[in-house]
């Protein structure tokens, strides 16, 4: 990367406090595809000049997959350890790159002693657009391109955030097309509830294929996502359909970064 990503440890050592902590998440840290999204979020933060930091190696799984799988012990162990770290750094505001981390920290951490203002990166992008700090210029043009947005369950139904990601797409002057099942009626990609980490039960179709079929019905050039797990499921679906050349699956952060030439 062209700039150095600041860590909390360094900030603290320098006697500084960031405006916002970027919670990267496990997928964003380790998954090669999601790492690109992580870097794009950093590029956006760097571009608009927000004082931010990441936890780096001090970050740890929020416990979300353990909780959805039914292991409340492991979830709370993770949560309390994380809260200790976050509180020690006096964190006030967090932006996450993953709707699962977002939901867990925002809704489930307060009861365990961790209360922060938590936003998802699509909300951050929406805010930056509203404040006029972020436009869609100087980069790749999405003008007139057909884009369909897939609602992640834990952002949409789970927390009622449907407009922020769409707002981020609207500034592109692209042609937004909705899938038949969208917003509160959106179909899951198939990864939630710890499904990401296991084989699906016996059935007649994979959920991500059902979703990709629906997305392809809109004849899109880009399928927009806001979650690293959806990204994996949708990308796999596109590969299976042999449509990798025609249709790109991109995160809202990637689209924003590209549109701004970051």
């Amino acid at each position, binding site marked *: 990367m062209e700039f150095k990503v600041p860590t909390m440890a360094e900030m603290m050592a320098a006697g500084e406090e960031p405006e916002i902590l970027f919670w990267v998440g496990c997928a964003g840290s380790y998954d090669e595809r999601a790492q690109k999204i*992580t*870097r794009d979020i950093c590029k956006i933060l760097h571009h608009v000049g927000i004082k931010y930091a990441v936890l780096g190696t001090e970050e740890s799984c929020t416990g979300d997959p353990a909780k959805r799988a*039914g*292991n409340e012990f492991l979830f709370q162990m993770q949560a309390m350890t994380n809260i200790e770290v976050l509180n020690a750094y006096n964190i006030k505001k967090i932006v996450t790159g993953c709707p699962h981390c977002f939901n867990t920290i925002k809704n489930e951490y307060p009861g365990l002693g961790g209360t922060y203002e938590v936003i998802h990166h699509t909300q951050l992008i929406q805010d930056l657009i509203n404040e006029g700090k972020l436009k869609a210029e100087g980069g790749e043009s999405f003008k007139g391109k057909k884009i369909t947005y897939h609602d992640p369950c834990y952002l949409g139904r*789970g927390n009622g955030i449907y407009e922020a990601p769409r707002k981020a797409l609207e500034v592109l002057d692209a042609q937004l097309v909705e899938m038949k099942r969208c917003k509160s009626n959106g179909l899951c990609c198939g990864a939630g509830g710890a499904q990401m980490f296991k084989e699906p039960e016996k*059935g007649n179709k994979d959920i991500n294929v059902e979703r990709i079929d629906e997305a392809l019905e809109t004849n899109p050039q880009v399928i927009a996502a806001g979650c690293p797990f959806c990204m994996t499921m949708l990308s796999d679906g596109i590969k299976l359909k042999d449509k990798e050349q025609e249709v790109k699956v991109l995160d809202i952060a990637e689209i924003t970064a590209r549109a701004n030439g970051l």
Partner: protein
Amino acid sequence: MVAQILFLVFTLAAIVLFTVNFRKIIRNIRLGKAVDRNDQPQKRLMTMIKVAFGQSKMVVRPIPAFLHFFVYVGFVIINIEVLEIMIDGLFGTHRIFHGLGGLYDFLIGSFEILALTVWLSCVIFLIRRNILKLKRFRGTEMTAWPKSDANYILITEVLLMTAFLLMNAADAKLQTLGVGHYVTAGSFPISQYLQALLPSSENALIMLERGCWWFHILGILAFLNYLPYSKHFHILFAFPNTYFSNLEPKGEFTNMPSVTNEVKAMLDPSFVPAETEPGKFGAKDVTDLTWVNLMNAYTCTECGRCTSVCPANITGKLLSPRKIMMDTRDRITEVGKNIDKHGAEHQDGKSLLDDYITREEIWACTSCNACVQACPVNIDPLQIIMELRRFAVMEESQAPASINAMMGNIENNQAPWKYSPADRFNWAEGN
């Protein structure tokens, strides 16, 4: 006089029987664990008014919403007529409210129009279920009883409305003939067209009018007592069920306080846990669920909106959120019957998990909340699925092998995959 006594006996018997069965259901619901749903009364009231009275979540599917609205409004408003029938039955009067004059004519006229719309809607519903055989009304859990239950309800409503209209037609004809106590009252925008079908003999008309009157009221009393055995119980429970529904974001799952204590004690040996109820983690049987979960089960009217949007079900998996609710109700009913027969301590060796709901079902869930969103009366099948998972994982250590591997990774590497925590920040070195 005999008629009045008979009427009183039937009415009292119906009320007593209903009360007995209703109280059993309340007792069964109370077998569930405590959960506080008394906060934010104003917001709860608004939710109930919007979702139950206003049927706001029905509109997603306009055709059934429209038809259901007719039946709902018809049911609520025609009950004003039942009040008159009650008074007439007890005091031997006839059309006691006729003194209201123009208002009475308006009311009876409206009831007739509503009766027709209810009649038509129910016939269309019967066609949708039995001739068109819509997918939503099929599925593995829709066995003989649930299918018959739906048909019984619809046929009863068709018959009740038919009796109401025939009664009015006969009454109006008797009014025109100037027979005895048949005072001129009411307007009959619908049943006037039925008059031509009726006999012209005075006696036959009186027989028909009385017959329909008795059929209508006895039908209603019988229907009332059918409710506790039927999915149709939703006409009562939709209201408390929405009132006590979850107000938090759907993505938020409960943090188990019993676990919090143990984890705090583990992280800090000096921690003294507050008194909490000991017991098992998660749910194996219905009595491990909360009373709200159990009330949900009694409220479910098996419409199948949940199952029709469930990604697992859509793609052919065994999981069906509707079945989760139906199984929960069947099991709590069974537990209740055991208590009636053998006392509260009786154990039948059965449980919700395994005897009703299989592991394959609970592990197919993506926790996407589509079922919760789709339910027109705010039932939450996901919470039951999660409680069953919690039992399987925390009490039995029975999770799919890959799930165990994922949890092992979180414990050892602080990530669900097997990567070294030291490499967590390596992404910053890429481009």
